[in-house]
């Protein structure tokens, strides 16, 4: 058919139009130059024997680590039970990481911002629900059995709402005014926002670990020596349901499609009658609703919360989002599970003191060797 792209028929015009931001031919040309540049760098790297050596070295180290882990798995006194128990733990924390990673990935997808404050909203959510729980005097054993759910469900829902509103406010005051500023500016306010939130939470709850009562009914099931507590099941099932709900929302609903349209081409989206500000605010709201849920679940699951929980957890969840392919919702869920699983295995079979370091090693390796992540796009998000 026609098929000749705008760029080729307008060659003479290209040079003249190179500075025009909205001109697709110029953008295509620039992107092509970019891609070619990257390919050249890549080709140079692939051709360089030191880089080749480095890749083999990395591969070798990974294989050695896997072999060591296999040995540790096999030589444990109860190999199967311990192995399965590790998977149960991995699923639990992996689900929480997945929920947090979704917030990073949604915001990055729509405005290309790493919202450093996101994980602090998670902590904030944990503190909110903890305060309400304490205010009502709920403790282990005070309310027993499924009745506690009558209290937990509205408390969690309320927390999710409050977190959503907080995040909308953050977007309004810290990011929206910088929407057209150079990209590094909102990154800096995001880091600033993170410090502000942690500071406020420090003043509010102090530097100590705050005990979070173990309110989820304590039944458990033991199979082949592996214990699955009710809270393990609750966390995994609810997280899975939320991820599915979010995925359906983003692919099927009108607002979800508007979010994807805005992510792909903001000006074109506003030419469709989409209110960009509202759509971006909605994205922050939804990400924070998941954060509020994750914060409450974190407290219930691990039993304590500290004001700077977001710092380390955020970096891990962000790693999960990058591993899955930043901007990709299913990728974030998958990445969260993988990281949770990795963390559990490293804790179980190696020295847990090294777990965090290893997670950053993973982040570095992903960025070096597969920057698009597991499920990421090969082509950049924006044309």
């Amino acid at each position, binding site marked *: *058919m026609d098929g000749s792209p705008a760029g080729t028929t307008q060659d003479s015009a290209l040079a003249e139009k190179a500075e025009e931001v909205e001109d697709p031919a110029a953008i295509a040309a620039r992107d092509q130059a970019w891609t070619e540049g990257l390919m050249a760098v890549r080709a140079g790297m692939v051709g360089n024997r030191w880089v080749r050596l480095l890749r083999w070295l990395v591969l070798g180290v990974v294989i050695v680590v896997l072999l060591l882990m296999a040995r540790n798995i096999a030589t444990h006194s109860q190999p199967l039970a311990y192995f399965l128990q590790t998977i149960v733990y991995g699923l639990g924390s992996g689900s929480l990481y997945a929920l947090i990673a979704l917030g990073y990935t949604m915001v990055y997808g729509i405005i290309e911002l790493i919202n450093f404050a996101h994980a602090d909203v998670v902590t904030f959510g944990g503190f909110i629900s903890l305060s309400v729980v304490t205010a009502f005097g709920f403790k282990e054993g005070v309310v027993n059995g499924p009745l506690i759910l009558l209290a937990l469900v509205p408390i969690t829902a309320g927390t999710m709402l409050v977190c959503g509103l907080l995040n909308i406010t953050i977007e309004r005051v810290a990011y929206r005014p910088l929407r057209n500023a150079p990209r590094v500016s909102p990154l800096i306010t995001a880091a600033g926002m993170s410090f502000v939130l942690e500071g406020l939470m420090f003043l509010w709850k102090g530097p100590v670990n705050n005990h979070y009562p173990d309110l989820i009914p304590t039944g458990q099931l033991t199979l082949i020596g592996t214990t699955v507590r009710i809270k393990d099941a609750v966390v995994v099932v609810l997280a899975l349901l939320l991820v599915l709900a979010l995925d359906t929302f983003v692919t099927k609903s009108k607002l979800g*499609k508007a979010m*994807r349209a805005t992510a*792909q081409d903001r000006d074109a989206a506003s*030419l469709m009658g989409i209110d960009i500000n509202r759509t971006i605010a909605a994205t922050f709201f939804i990400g924070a609703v998941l954060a509020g849920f994750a914060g409450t679940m974190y407290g219930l699951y691990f039993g304590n919360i500290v004001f700077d929980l977001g710092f380390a957890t955020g970096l891990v969840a962000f790693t999960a989002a990058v591993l899955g392919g930043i901007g990709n919702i299913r990728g974030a869920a998958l990445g969260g599970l993988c990281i949770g699983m990795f963390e559990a295995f490293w804790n179980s079979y190696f020295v847990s003191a090294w777990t965090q370091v290893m997670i950053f090693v993973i982040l570095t390796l992903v960025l070096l060797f597969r920057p698009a992540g597991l499920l990421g796009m090969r082509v950049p998000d924006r*044309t």
Partner: protein
Amino acid sequence: MALLELKGIDAFYARIQALHGVSLTVDRGEIVALIGSNGAGKTTTLRTISGLMHPAAGTITFDGRDISSTPPHRVVQLGICQAPEGRRLFQRLTVQDNLEMGAYSRRDRGGIRDSLEKVFTLFPRVKERRHQLAGTLSGGEQQMVAISRALMANPRALMLDEPSLGLAPLIVDTIFGIINEINSSGVPILLVEQNAVKALDVAHRAYVLETGTIVQSGPGKELAQSEEVQKAYLGI
């Protein structure tokens, strides 16, 4: 009074002035062409009307209402729609979803369904492709989707920015045929083109834009006869 009226519009990109006192009108039922060479300010004019940027001076009125500082999504709600330069489809949404986005600000489900039917009759090709990702279509098909998407809003005025850019001659003819058809169904069109021959042929009236200033205007056929226009834009 004209449906759409620009009076003395100045527009800037940072400190660079792209439009110098541009005035033009589009009346009900008209096709008005805006021609001019690359970089003349045609796209900027449409962006200013759509509210993607706001004029530093001058006023834009639509149906008697001042829309000079109205945000873009409100401009669409008022009934001005644009198929932007370079189509700008949502590449990773299906054609159907792209069309749905076109109808974003509408609430009348029945009306949306009617518009979809109309668009599918106008472009059978778009109907065939509706389950494909927009990014997988050919240039001509993408242009058809871009026009369809703008029509889904049931616009009271339609703006097309270089609909023939980069398309093969046969497709260009199809597109211009469709432009006529849309116009005869009662939609006024502001048509931006570098293909001056085709544009002047189809337009009732036309304006010539040169480095941000309107230098000539008049009925399309008349401009096509003018010496300056022939020299500069028709290659005669």
